[in-house]
C-alpha cells in the first residue's frame, strides 16, 4: 500500500480557517453528543408513553401504540431523515414549510426530532416488554389497594419495569448515539461528517476515521460506565 501517513495532520489548520483539524473533529463530536442527548429526551419520554399505551387494558390505546411502533420502526432511519427534512416542509401549509426551511440549524432540529421519534418506537418496545415481564399480580395488587390506573403505573409498574429494562435501554442509548451519524445525510456536521470532510480536504482517510472511531468508542465507554453506576445505585436489596 502506498499511503502517506501523517499523524500530525490533526494539528494542521483546517481549510475552514476556524482552527485545526482536531478542532473540527471535536466540534463534530459536540454536535453528535448534543443530538444524541436531545433526541434521547424525546425518545425516552415519548417511548415511555407509547410503551404504556400498549399495555393498557384499552383497545384504542393499544391500537395507537401499535400503529406508532410499527410505523416508526419499519421505515429505515435514512428514509425517515429524508422524509422529515425534504418532504415534510413541502407537504405542510406553505407558511409553516417556509418557516421550517429558514430555521437556523435546521439539520440539527430535524435530526433530533427524527432520531427521537425513531428511537421512541424502540424504547416503547422495551418499556412494554418490561411492564409485561412483571408478575400479573403486581398490577392486581396496585389496583386492589385502590390505586387508579395512573397511580398503579406511577407507583408500582414503572419503577420496576425501568429497573428491569435498564441494560437494554443502555444499548438503545448507544444505538441512538451512533445513529446520529445518519443525520450527516441532511447536512448535520456531526462527528462522522467532520471525519469525512477532513478526509476530503486532506486525503488522510485513515487518520480521520481512526480518530472518529476512537472518539465514538471513548464516548460509548463513558455511557456504559455511567449506566452501570445507575444500575448499581437503583438496584433493590434482596433482589436477584
Amino acid at each position: 500500500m502506498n499511503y502517506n501517513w501523517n499523524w500530525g495532520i490533526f494539528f494542521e489548520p483546517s481549510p475552514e480557517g476556524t482552527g485545526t483539524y482536531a478542532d473540527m473533529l471535536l466540534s463534530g463530536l459536540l454536535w453528535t453528543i448534543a443530538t444524541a442527548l436531545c433526541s434521547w429526551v424525546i425518545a425516552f419520554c415519548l417511548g415511555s408513553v407509547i410503551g404504556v399505551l400498549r399495555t393498557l387494558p384499552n383497545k384504542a390505546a393499544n391500537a395507537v401504540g401499535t400503529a406508532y411502533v410499527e410505523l416508526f420502526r419499519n421505515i429505515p432511519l435514512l428514509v425517515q431523515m429524508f422524509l422529515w427534512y425534504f418532504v415534510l416542509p413541502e407537504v405542510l401549509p406553505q407558511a409553516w414549510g417556509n418557516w421550517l426551511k429558514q430555521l437556523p440549524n435546521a439539520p440539527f432540529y430535524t435530526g433530533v426530532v427524527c432520531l427521537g421519534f425513531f428511537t421512541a418506537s424502540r424504547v416503547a418496545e422495551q418499556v412494554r416488554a418490561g411492564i409485561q415481564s412483571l408478575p400479573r399480580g403486581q398490577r392486581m395488587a396496585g389496583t386492589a389497594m385502590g390505586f387508579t390506573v395512573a397511580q398503579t403505573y406511577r407507583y408500582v409498574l414503572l419503577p420496576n419495569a425501568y429497573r428491569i429494562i435498564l441494560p437494554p435501554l443502555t444499548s438503545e442509548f448507544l444505538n441512538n448515539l451512533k445513529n446520529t451519524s445518519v443525520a450527516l445525510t441532511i447536512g448535520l456536521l456531526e462527528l462522522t461528517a467532520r471525519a469525512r470532510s477532513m478526509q476530503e480536504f486532506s486525503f488522510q482517510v485513515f487518520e480521520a476515521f481512526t480518530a472518529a472511531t476512537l472518539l465514538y468508542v471513548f464516548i460509548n465507554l463513558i455511557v456504559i460506565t455511567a449506566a452501570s453506576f445507575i444500575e448499581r445505585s437503583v438496584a433493590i436489596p434482596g433482589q436477584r
Partner: protein
Amino acid sequence: MTSTPMPAPTPSNPVAPAGQAPTDDGLQTGNLTQPGTRTGETMIAIDNVSKWYGDFQVLTNCTTSVAKGEVVVVCGPSGSGKSTLIKTVNALEPFQKGQITVAGTKVLDKSTNLPKLRSRVGMVFQHFELFPHLTITDNLTIAQRKVLKRGSEDAKKRGLDLLARVGLSAHAHKFPGQLSGGQQQRVAIARALAMNPVVMLFDEPTSALDPEMVGEVLDVMVELAKEGMTMMVVTHEMGFARKVADRVIFMDRGEIVEDAHKDDFFGKPRSERAQTFLSKILQH
C-alpha cells in the same frame, strides 16, 4: 410471634345504615368489630353472578353473602372458579351478569368509584405481591398516603403498629426480597389492614408458602378472625376452616355447589362432589 398485644378495637359505628356506603370515618373505627357483635348486617352480597371468558363460562349463577364479622371459607378443586369469584368482589375480575354489593356499594354500577371501593376491601394474594422496590415501611404506607391521603406521619404510625402486630417490627427498613415467604405474606396482610378495610379477601394466602411457614400466616389470620374481621378466604387449609370459619362454600366448575355452616359441611356434606373432594384432601 403474634402475641403482641393488639390495639384495642374500637366499637363499631352502629349508625351507618345498610345500603348506604359508610363514611370514611365510620370505616376507620368500624372495621374491627369485637367478637360477638355480629349484627347480621350483610357486608358482601353476591347475587346471581356469572362470568365468561369468551365462550367459556367460569362462573355460573353464584349467589351467597357474607355477614359483618363472618368468616367464610371458599374451597373446591382447582379450576372451580373460587379465585375468580373472590376477585369479582372488588372487581379485579369483571363479570357480565348479576350484581355484587360490598358494604352497600354496587360493584357493577357505572357510578361506583371502583378505586375508592377497592381501598376499603383488603386483599391478600397467593404470591404476596408486595411492591419489591419499596421498603416494608413504604409498602405499608404508600396506599395510605396516595389513596387515603393520610399524612406521612399518621400513615407510618398506622403501618408500624400493624407491622408490630404481625410480629415484624425489626424488618421495617428491609425490602420484600430480604424476607421469607411467610414474613412477606404477614407484611401483605398488614398492608391490607393499614387501609382500614371493612372486609378482607384472601386468595389462597398459604398456597405458595413452604410448609413450615404456613402456620405463622394462619396464626395472623386466626387472630384477625377472632377480632371480628369480616373475611372471605379461598384456601385448602381445612384446619383453618374448622377452627375459625363460620361457613364453608364449596365450588366446582364455576358453581357454588354447597354453602353450609362449618359443622354441617365437615359433618356431612350433602353433595357427592363435596364428599369426594373432602375425602381426597382430608386423607393426608
